[in-house]
């Protein structure tokens, strides 16, 4: 029987990471739906989800054939690269060194880009709209698929992690359907910062286990790692903010 204390870190990490990605995909699908109607938007989204599901079903079983220690090492390194990349970017955005992501601006840009595409190519409007939605779902969904596999595969938690990601999809769809505009009020950088902390903690944990380290406290070590990455991220952001303020005219 799977205990909540074991599954919780994977479910929470998958939920919040997926929330960030689904919000980004939703902005583009919303632009498509608003400009060309919901039929091409829904068709592109459904096709994109089918491609992602096929990727998971195709590659998932292959992971069972990889020795567990090698799998932990490879996934741990990929999580370190991915998670620390997110944490770095969120820290720089928090410090004001790089601009925050603006869903309203992306919605406007995507709408203008879609209109331009249609004028130049003179192809079927619905086709272009459907492809745009498909691309958004596949490109953002790739990250969700990686995160679900990465936080779930090392401990046989693929199903709970997938449920965390599906819950995020459901939440964005429900809220998006109600407000019917880009979800620009979600504190995306804070979410990204938190997810970067969790994925980096998972990365150190799996990489260490893959190298043969028996962490004291087993899974509870993840909490200590997350606290340390949170402190390091906040410190890095504060130092960069101070530099930024010092360099301002």
């Amino acid at each position: 029987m799977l205990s909540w204390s074991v599954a919780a870190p994977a479910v929470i990490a998958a939920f919040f990471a997926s929330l960030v990605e689904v919000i980004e995909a939703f902005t583009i699908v919303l632009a498509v739906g608003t400009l060309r109607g919901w039929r091409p938007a829904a068709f592109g989204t459904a096709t994109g989800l089918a491609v992602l599901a096929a990727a998971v079903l195709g590659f998932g079983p292959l992971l069972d054939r990889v020795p567990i220690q090698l799998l932990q090492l490879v996934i741990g390194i990929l999580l370190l690269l991915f998670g620390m990349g997110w944490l770095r970017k969120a820290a720089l955005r928090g410090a004001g060194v790089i601009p925050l992501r603006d869903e309203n601006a992306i919605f406007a840009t995507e709408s203008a880009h879609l209109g331009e595409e249609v004028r130049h190519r003179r192809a079927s409007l619905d086709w272009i709209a459907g492809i745009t939605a498909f691309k958004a779902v596949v490109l953002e969904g790739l990250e969700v698929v990686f995160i679900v596999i990465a936080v779930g595969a090392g401990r046989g938690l693929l199903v709970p992690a997938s449920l965390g990601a599906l819950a995020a999809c459901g939440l964005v769809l429900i809220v998006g359907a109600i407000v019917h505009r880009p979800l620009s009020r979600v504190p995306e950088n804070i979410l990204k910062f938190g997810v970067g902390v969790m994925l980096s903690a998972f990365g150190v944990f799996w990489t260490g286990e893959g190298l043969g380290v028996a962490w004291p406290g087993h899974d509870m070590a993840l909490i200590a790692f997350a606290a340390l990455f949170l402190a390091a991220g906040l410190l890095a952001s504060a130092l960069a903010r101070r530099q930024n303020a010092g360099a301002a005219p």
Partner: protein
Amino acid sequence: MTMLNEVLAELIGMFLADARLTAAILAVVALSAILIRFGGIDPLISGGVLLGSCLAVLVENVRHSGRRRHSP
């Protein structure tokens, strides 16, 4: 083909967003592996090196990126 290129670019960008950060992380993992495999050091100490180095790499990389953006 464009679509495939975009998917590949997205995959590469997921893990190699910043070359300096990527190189530092890979070096830290390699160092920890060498300490365990050839250094005869207790794996838990190597694990501590891995964790501490990753934290240091993060702080240094963010500081460096902030400095680079302001250099003339």
